[in-house]
């Protein structure tokens, strides 16, 4: 990242995504706010992690940025141009520059196509290159992703789990994207393949000067590759800041609870003295006040009345009235 103030690669402003709830005859009876007034910016070359529990809106955010969903409110700027807003149709040219990597890349490869055909396809759609030019580009990407050329003639079922991840990344990278959205890239992997995937992501980022948006509930993975972390809770951004600050000195009570729930090798057993902590979906989204109010150990009556705004304190923002009153984690 440079020290001169440059405009961010991706800027999300007051983004909201509400899903309609329909009653008997298809009439809308309400809506589920999956995302509400989320604002953040990603600089070129940066890795921003989006963490939170299931149902926090992580995937909805990724899918809205990828153009799969149209936002209800708000706007997304990408490299200076308007990317997403209500009623905006996305230009095809931006699709290549912003790529979305699915959780299970094996499932997004056509099982009856060889890897070679799967890698040619995006280039046929987005470029007018000759077959030879495409083949050369594919050779370069395949090598960078740690595959060999003989893999190109294999079908997805003939590749191992780790090779499938490499193939999925290669397929996205042939288009030279600027921003890559990674949706749970390490979910369900064994420790060895997971370490391989994380190292590969780091290597590819340096090699192709990529910017990542990493969506994950694997906090260790987020810690190992992210520059900054944003914490989502029920569709709201509750904290955003540099990775080390989030892990060492988290400010929001929810972030603290999330980190406290992580088992740590060598630490005390966190399930000892186990108590029922409540669940996000046990309470309806409150119409006013802080969304974490019902589960927050530090809540005061004022927290149920107004919703705290995300502050911006030297790059470490938090949406909580009480964070300064809470003693830091020893």
């Amino acid at each position, binding site marked *: 990242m440079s020290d001169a103030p440059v405009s961010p690669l991706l800027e999300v402003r007051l983004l909201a995504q509400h899903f309609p709830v329909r009653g008997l005859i298809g009439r809308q009876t309400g809506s589920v706010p999956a995302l509400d007034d989320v604002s953040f910016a990603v600089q070129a070359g940066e890795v921003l992690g989006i963490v939170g529990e299931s149902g926090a809106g992580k995937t909805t955010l990724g899918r809205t940025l990828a153009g799969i969903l149209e936002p209800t409110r708000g706007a997304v700027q990408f490299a200076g141009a308007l990317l997403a807003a209500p009623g905006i149709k996305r230009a095809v040219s931006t699709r290549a520059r912003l790529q979305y990597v699915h959780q299970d890349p094996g499932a997004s490869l056509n099982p009856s196509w060889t890897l070679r055909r799967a890698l040619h396809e995006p280039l046929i759609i987005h470029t007018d290159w000759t077959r030879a030019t495409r083949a050369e580009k594919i050779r370069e990407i395949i090598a960078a992703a740690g595959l060999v050329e003989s893999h190109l003639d294999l079908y997805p079922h003939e590749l191992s789990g780790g090779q499938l991840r490499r193939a999925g990344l290669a397929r996205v990278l042939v288009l030279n994207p600027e921003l890559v959205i990674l949706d749970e890239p390490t979910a369900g992997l064994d420790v*060895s393949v997971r370490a391989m995937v994380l190292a590969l992501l780091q290597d590819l980022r340096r090699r192709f000067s990529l910017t990542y948006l990493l969506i994950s509930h694997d906090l260790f993975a987020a810690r190992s590759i992210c520059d900054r972390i944003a914490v989502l809770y029920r569709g709201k951004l509750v904290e955003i800041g540099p990775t080390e600050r989030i892990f060492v000195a988290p400010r929001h009570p929810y972030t603290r609870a999330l980190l406290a729930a992580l088992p740590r090798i060598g630490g005390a057993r966190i399930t000892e003295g186990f108590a029922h902590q409540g669940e996000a979906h046990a309470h309806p989204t409150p119409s006013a006040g802080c969304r974490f109010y019902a589960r927050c150990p530090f809540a005061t009556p004022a927290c149920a009345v107004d919703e705290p705004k995300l502050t911006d304190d030297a790059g470490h923002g938090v949406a909580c009235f009480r964070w300064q009153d809470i003693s830091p984690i020893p």
Partner: protein
Amino acid sequence: MSAVLDIQGLSLGVRTEAGMAHILDHVDLAVHSGEIMGLVGESGCGKTTLARALLGNLPESGAWKAGGGIRLDGEEMLQGGSKARALRGRVVTFIPQDPLASFNPLFRIGTQIRDLLRAKLPASESPGGWKPAVISMLKAVLLPYPDAILAAYPHQLSTGQRQRVMIALALLPQPRLIIADEPTTALDASTQRQILGLLRRLAAERGAAVLFTTHDLAAAWEVCDRISVMYAGQVVEIAERDRFFTRARHPYSRMLLACLEDGSTGIPGDAPDPHAPSAGCRFAPRCPNRSQICIEARPELAVQSDGDLLACHHPWGDAAAGAHV
């Protein structure tokens, strides 16, 4: 303390198009009452085959047993047929990785539990007689409003709630052994914590033995009493939890733990082909400590001075290690 589960010298193969795949090779494993035994290893190392063998659930035509046996409370499990069917779901129960795939989406949770109990525990059958036990079990797994849960369809519950219903179901017949196959993989940190705490408490309170399969070493640290490590169908090390995480002896265990460190690139190399197993240690091709003997002779799983078990010719820290490579 006698072992609830006692596996000795179990070797299993499966017929495939490419020939016989040797999935399990001389597996020795014992789990005691009230103990949570972690089973870790890479994808494809035989964890699931072992779990299916324990459930007596291997395909009768395709599977082939080369030797050894599984004794559950003294009963032989591998004979298949009606005997194993009678034990399955009562003496040994199973918590799956994906509870949504294990429920029928078209029936209410309560209906499915009732049908299951009719099939598995006919003695408890009296109109409505199944309900009090189920409700108290749902309360034991910390599910509030159990009546509402029984009336709900699977999609109406959250992932954490579904997993807790599965745990309640697995505990209901008061089994001697519970096989938990990556029960927290799909869960986020706060739900995982609840499920792990529940498993630990219930194992201790009810004296069931738990075989906990996982990729997540931090989760294994959290709940397990002992950890067994499998590589390509062989048990390479069984160690008490603290010793495993601080002083693991097998090079594979060491390399597995090193994957958690920042900057790790994983374990180089690939798992061996199960169709043509080597006569020696299956980890030898990827092992930094290997010598000629590792390729020729399979190391026996031997008891160490502290009671842990290890199958390795050149344990970590051994001065002679690596000298012959």
